[in-house]
């Protein structure tokens, strides 16, 4: 007998979870280890239960399915379950194993499970890059950034983001006096943010221009940006040019 698959169901609708639970009962090799009504519960469950398979709804409050995947998805198989067919392409871009459209048939579910087993047998690990890119539907700037801190999740609406600093392999998000670390590159963060509001003022710093009070000269050939809360950030020569361009435009 094959090893049982540990699965988590994530859907904000009670009935939708019910359908999956019932259909999965017919598959003896699948064990449901948790059911979650939202993305926060999902991140917690995945951290604690270490499932191999996640059935993930896309339209959910606060954290949508793609954001949940960005936070949890590395070495588990994800099957999206949604009524919306327009996300299918994006789902495969982020290496979802399959994409079930509500309402789905039992045959279709069996097929998706087969895909998941193949995927898990290959021990494929999803690269992190596409997951990050997925948070940017259709090239539009993101409206919020999600950060995982153990089993906790922080959701930072971009308008509350003050500035972003590079920190080794991480970025440090500064928001309302708090600091949140996220495993991501500066280039990815810069690309995800609204270029009309955020500007890369230095190799290691992206600034929300709404927080800027003034720019002062600092030493020879360099400047410093002063924020509303008094924070001082380095501004490079190209960064200063970019800042000027944004403020003038």
């Amino acid at each position, binding site marked *: 007998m094959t090893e049982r698959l540990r699965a988590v169901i994530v859907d904000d609708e009670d009935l939708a979870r019910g359908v999956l639970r019932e259909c999965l009962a017919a598959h003896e090799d699948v064990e449901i280890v948790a059911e979650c009504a939202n993305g926060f519960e999902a991140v917690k469950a995945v951290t604690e239960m270490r499932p191999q398979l996640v059935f993930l709804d896309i339209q959910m409050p*606060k954290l949508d399915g793609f954001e949940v995947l960005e936070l949890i998805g590395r070495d588990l198989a994800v099957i999206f379950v949604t009524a919306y067919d327009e996300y299918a392409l994006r789902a495969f871009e982020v290496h979802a194993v399959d994409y079930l459209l509500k309402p789905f048939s039992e045959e279709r579910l069996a097929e998706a499970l087969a895909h998941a087993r193949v995927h898990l047998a290959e021990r494929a690990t999803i690269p992190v890059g596409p997951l990050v890119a997925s948070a940017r539907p259709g090239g539009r700037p993101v409206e919020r950034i999600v950060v995982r801190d153990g089993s906790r999740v922080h959701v930072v609406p971009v308008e509350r983001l003050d500035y972003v600093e590079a920190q080794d392999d991480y970025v440090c998000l500064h928001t309302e006096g708090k600091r949140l670390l996220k495993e991501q590159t500066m280039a990815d963060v810069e690309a995800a943010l609204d270029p009309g509001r955020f500007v890369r003022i230095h190799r290691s710093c992206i600034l929300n221009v709404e927080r800027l009070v003034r720019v002062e000269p600092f030493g020879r050939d360099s400047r410093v940006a002063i924020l509303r809360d008094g924070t001082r950030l380095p501004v490079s020569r190209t960064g200063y040019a970019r800042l000027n361009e944004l403020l003038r435009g």
Partner: protein
Amino acid sequence: MQPVLARSPRLALYLAACLAVGGLLSAAIAGRSGLSVARTAAVVLPLALVFGFVCLSSWYVCRATPLRTSPTAMVAGNIAGSTLFAGALWLALGRAFAWAAARIPGLAGVDRLFSSDAPLLFAVGALVYLLSLAAHYVVLGVDEAQATEQRALEVQLMAREAELKALRAQIEPHFLFNSLNSISALTTADPAGARRMCSLLGEFLRASLKFGARERIPLADELALVQAFFDIERVRFGSRLCFEQAAEDGVRECLVPPLLLQPLAENAVNHGVAERLEGGTVRLHAARAGDMLRIVMENAFDADRPREARRGVGLDNVRRRLATHYGGRATLGVNDEDGRFRVTISLPASREASPP
């Protein structure tokens, strides 16, 4: 076809007018030739009738060279040529009629008519013909203006049809897919619930198809539709979604465009309550304010989402639709103060069958 020839009453009227002009002309020229008015008329009246038809033919000249689309030189040439020809024809016909009439016993001497003053007679014929040309151009112009107006009306009507179709499509297909999924869940867990959901969905779809085909429906029917929509959504969202509606006395009979509130209801769920972990309440309130009907739909929303994300395309559709139906007399306002997203529609309260 020539507009006068096209209808016999018009033709009769026109010929009578020709005879009247002929009579006047007879009276005017009788003295010059020393003939009695009656004798002169014997020649001039038939001539007037025949020349009347010649003038009608100027319609075809006008049709051949419409003012707007033909080169000026061509129009001028056509007018000048046909006018000269008509003047000459008038003169020749006059002389022929006079000559022929003189052969009739009792009309001897009428051949004196048209024998002299040739330039003057020619000018009269040409002028009359020129007037008929001008009149025909005016008629053509009026026709064209009417046709343009007609076309504009048709286009407007088509636009409205398209708008309605688009609006009927506003019932989100995802709403149906999600409902079907709920039914799928209920079939084994709660068969009676599944059956109830099927009938709710059936009623909602039937009513929206029926009302959607009408120009206006009573607010009571629209409110029932909205209620049915929320009954279905409540099966899906369970305790996360609450819906309350209240309509003051005397507003239920007011007429509104069908499915006007549907996009607002869908917005309130999809961009409002569904975005909140804890869910929330959607409230609908309808009241009279003077001779206006005021409908307010409000819902809880997630304050962390950007403002644009709360709106959805539904609002613009409703606004456009109000403009099509009521012009500037209807308004749609949005505000999101005190933590509630609130859409207020104000439209003329009418009870009669749809005003224009």
